[in-house]
């Protein structure tokens, strides 16, 4: 039953159309509307649809919003760096050292991710708190004399909690990239006289770059949008831009400003992602040469 190209194209489009229509109506349209909305203004319940840049002006010049935006960016970059760096050895271990039960390891790595996100974040609060599990254990072991206070309600807590929440998303792409590496290349490097360290930096790492890049983007993008973790464990110094977006749509009742903040943060994250993407491609190419 040979299908000519035109017929095939029509059938494919027809088949994908329900899902595509859903995405157009309920994803693309709302996103466009949010962008429009960010150029409007709201006074209590009255919406003024004359286009204006006032919301953006406020979003970009008000010291509070600027500080929150910069802080979100800083925290997200820090979280991403920590998550990817700590995840890499685990992915490496499962790919190169585990021989028999890889699937079991992958299942064990992803399983905690399926427990309630809210409760996981809350439990980190329990672990890191003044009378928390971590402090109790250290006190009991005699390592410290009084509870450590620098681990909860600040940026550290946000980093630890998010590094935990996004761990599987960082490990899996790196693992997939490592699995794809042709093992004979490593043998070749060894035969040509590279030691394990040189071999790692000259062969394994450059080939794993696509996975590392995917992990970086997968962690970075949603992290900027999280508002649960900053609210629960971040204290005041850990609050991020999403908390402000939520406030604008909720209590402050200024949806257009919230939309402007959301669009701004999306553009910043998008730009940063593009930079990372381009940079990693360059690194990959240079190191691969």
């Amino acid at each position, binding site marked *: *039953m040979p299908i000519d190209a035109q017929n*095939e*194209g029509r*059938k*494919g*489009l027809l*088949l*994908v159309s*329900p*899902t*595509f229509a*859903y*995405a*157009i109506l*309920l*994803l693309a349209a*709302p*996103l466009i*509307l*949010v962008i429009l909305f960010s150029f409007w203004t709201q006074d209590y319940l009255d919406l003024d649809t004359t286009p204006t840049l006032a919301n953006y002006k406020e979003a970009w010049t008000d010291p509070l919003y600027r500080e929150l935006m910069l802080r979100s960016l800083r925290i997200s970059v820090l979280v991403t760096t920590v998550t990817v760096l700590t995840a890499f*050895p685990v992915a490496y*271990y499962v790919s190169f*050292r585990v021989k028999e039960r890889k699937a079991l390891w992958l*299942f*064990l790595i992803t*399983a*905690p991710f*399926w*427990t*309630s*996100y*809210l*409760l*996981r974040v809350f*439990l*980190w609060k*329990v*672990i890191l*708190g003044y*009378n928390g*599990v971590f402090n*109790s254990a250290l006190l009991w072991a005699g390592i410290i004399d009084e509870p450590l206070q620098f681990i909860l309600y600040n940026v550290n807590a946000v980093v630890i909690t998010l590094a*935990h929440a996004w*761990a599987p998303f960082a490990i899996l792409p790196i693992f997939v990239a490592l699995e794809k590496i042709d093992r004979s290349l490593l043998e070749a490097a060894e035969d040509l006289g590279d030691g*394990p360290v040189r071999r790692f930096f000259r062969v394994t790492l450059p080939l794993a770059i696509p996975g590392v890049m995917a992990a970086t983007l*997968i962690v970075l*993008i*949603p992290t*900027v*949008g*999280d*508002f*649960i973790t900053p609210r629960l464990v971040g204290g005041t110094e850990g609050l991020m831009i*999403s908390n402000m977006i*939520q406030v604008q*749509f909720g209590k402050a009742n200024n*949806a257009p400003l*919230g*939309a402007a903040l*959301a669009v701004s943060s999306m553009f910043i994250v998008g730009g940063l992602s593009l930079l990372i993407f381009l940079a990693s491609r360059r690194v990959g190419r240079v190191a691969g040469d």
Partner: protein
Amino acid sequence: MAKGLKKLSWLQAYASVYMVFLYAPVVLLPIFAFNDSTVIAFPLSGFTTDWFASLRDNAALKSAVSNSLIVAVTTAMISTILGAFAARAGVRYRFPAKRGIMGLILLPLVLPEIIIAVALLVMLMRLGLSLSLWTVIVGHVLVCVPFSIAVLNSAFSGLDQSLEEASFDLGETAWGTFRRVTFPLILPGVISSLLITFTISLDEFIIAFFLTGTDVTLPVYIWSQLRFPAKLPGVMALGTLLLLLTISLLVIAEFFRRRTAQRRGLDASTTEGLI
């Protein structure tokens, strides 16, 4: 740390510590659920099942659970159907603007949930629609479809096209072929997709938080309880039950996913028993 055993053991030790880090919060959940104290901290004071018992006659919780079940079941069905259309089209056909179309459908994977939530909220406000469980479902379907596509992609790409062609040649209609040949073959993938999207929807908080009306879903209920210290042990008990539920669902999903993978290896003759 040059070679051989020593390096291996370092990596292994690191991986083990990392697993402890991953499981630390998960292990604490049941511990505090059975702890006989209203304060969530060590030292533990005694064993009790009171917190589980207290869940039984909590009307607000019951309604949150039934709301969440309605949302999760509906989301799972809609997103698996939409996911099946897209996965089938993506695997089988080349069509114009395929990358763009698939890109838009998969976009929620890289979009922060707060953006999706805010965008839908703005649209609903403009349309003058009120928030209900349906608005939550709409948002959840957007997030779940990409996962459904990922699961069903492997089911469809493992499908031997000659089986469907044989069915056409033997005079079956398109619907008959789908019902008697295609569907039974992708069934494990469909079940796995239903379970995964159900689980995602059941746990999703951010979209539900923005789009929920007066009928709250379970995560939104939990969020409201976290503010009251006295309610926390009950929340721990609830979390433990949810943990058991999701883990069992995932084990079942994994089982079906593997069966899909296994079926790829089978030749045409062995499918007779399945049709």
